[in-house]
């Protein structure tokens, strides 16, 4: 854990839903934290409740029990406090790319022209130069994700929730985007909570990785990634990387035992 108050902290967060008359427990007491300028990944089996964690942190839904702290405080509403980038790019088809990325600034009440000027300065770094006036339908998947990410960054929040942003991209684009994200993160140094189910991606990008259990999700293991920064994509072939990968994979696959202990506890 980094020194000082964590940017985002979850303390024993539980979340249960009523679904078709049944009670479904999505989060079974999740405790985790992300420090200032730290890149933290959440990895776990699909359907384990990762996105529910984000919905709770972003303030879209309240936990059934437990606490969510932002900057060490419990705000009345967390809506508008962190930048949330969902799995789908959710670009507005009727807005140009430029007007899409300024959406958050607009919501904050920034004047449209000023917002556009601020956004334009970032277009080259995001590989979007020349596409300012195009509509989302004209862009490739990678570009759409970069636009969605720029929209998230422009919100001006120093904590970002990225929910499998590269999940829908092909392997090659994905590798490019990961390296690009490393570069962007090193430039802006936001706090990032990152959801993925790709072990390589989690290790490549993160300072720490939380391995989550099946539903109801709890943190099964926390793995510190002490690979030196700045990192390049080539790091995935180093022995240190392979060792970390073995650790994370082992934690992911150690299914029966923790699941049983959990079942007994509930």
């Amino acid at each position, binding site marked *: 854990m980094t020194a000082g108050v964590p940017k985002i902290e979850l303390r024993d967060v539980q979340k249960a839903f009523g679904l078709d008359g049944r009670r479904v427990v999505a989060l079974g007491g999740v405790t985790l934290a992300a420090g200032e300028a730290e890149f933290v990944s959440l990895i776990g089996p699909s359907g384990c409740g990762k996105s529910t964690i984000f919905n709770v942190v972003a303030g879209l839904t309240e936990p059934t029990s437990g606490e969510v702290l932002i900057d060490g405080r419990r705000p009345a509403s967390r*809506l508008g406090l962190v930048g949330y980038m969902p799995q789908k790019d*959710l670009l*507005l088809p009727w807005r140009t790319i430029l007007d899409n990325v300024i959406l958050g600034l607009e919501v*904050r009440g920034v004047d449209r022209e000023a917002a556009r000027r601020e956004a334009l300065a970032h277009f080259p770094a995001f590989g979007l130069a020349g596409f300012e006036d195009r*509509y989302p339908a*004209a862009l490739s998947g990678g570009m759409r994700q970069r636009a969605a990410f720029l929209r998230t960054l422009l919100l001006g929040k120093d904590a970002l929730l990225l929910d499998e942003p590269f999940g829908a991209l092909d392997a090659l684009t994905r590798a490019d985007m990961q390296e690009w994200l490393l570069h962007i993160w090193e430039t802006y140094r936001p706090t990032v909570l990152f959801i993925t189910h790709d072990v390589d991606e989690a290790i490549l990008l993160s300072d720490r990785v939380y391995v989550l259990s099946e539903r109801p999700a709890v943190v099964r293991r926390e793995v510190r990634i002490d690979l030196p920064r700045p990192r390049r994509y080539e790091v995935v072939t180093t022995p240190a990387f392979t060792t970390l990968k073995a650790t994370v994979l082992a934690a992911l696959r150690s299914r029966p035992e923790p699941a049983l202990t959990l079942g007994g506890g509930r």
Partner: protein
Amino acid sequence: MARLVTTSPPAPSPQAERGLGGEVSRPLAEYAASAALALTALLAWEVAAAGFAIPKWLLPAPSDVVAALVASWELIARHTLATLEEVLVGFVASFVVGVALAVAIVRSRVVERALYPFVVASQTIPIVAIAPVLLVWFGYGLWPKAIVVVLICFFPIVVNTVDGFRSVDPDLVDLLRTMGATPRQIFTKVQVPTALPYLLSGTKIAIAVSVIGAVIGEWVGAQAGLGYLMVRSAAQFQTARVFAAILVLSAMGVALFGLVALIERFALAYRRAS
């Protein structure tokens, strides 16, 4: 009158209607087939009318219709303006009422439960039956016609716009909420733009049937308008003039529809840009 019965407004799905706007943009060449068909039919009609010596009062030839149009030009123009006024007043009122109802229905469950059944029920009332009552209430002037137009036109606007608001992606709403957006910002930045294509589809249907509404209103009782002119001309066996009035009415309907389609083209420019 048989034709009237079939003119109750349909409630087509917006998806089915969306293609219509594109037709305006297509090259003229695509209309070559329909133009050829129309010309052939007109020619056959002309030849048949002359060949079988059909009396003009029974079935005037296309040339007779054009002749009537030219001869009665001033008369027809005066009545056209009267009908156009009824259509425009009725249509603008339908648009305002339709959009307001749709917003109210989408925003409040209570309003929806209270109003939606009546909105639907309003379409089961035979307009031809209610028009005489409107005549009794509002006299021979503009208003009973405008009200008939509203009764016919507001429905496709309400239904389509409600469907449009309902089709909003809930994930998009959540995204704006995480940005700290107010309900008002979510409405203007997400819900309205999502509903706009549906609203425009409903508007195209409404404008296309608005002319019919005005004519029904006039048939029941009027002192001016193309519908009134048709009734009067038919009574005088001026059949060519009846056809001339129908021709002008169709042209009016097509022109108004084209206008809305044009507005749609500009409003939804993003759809063609990709």
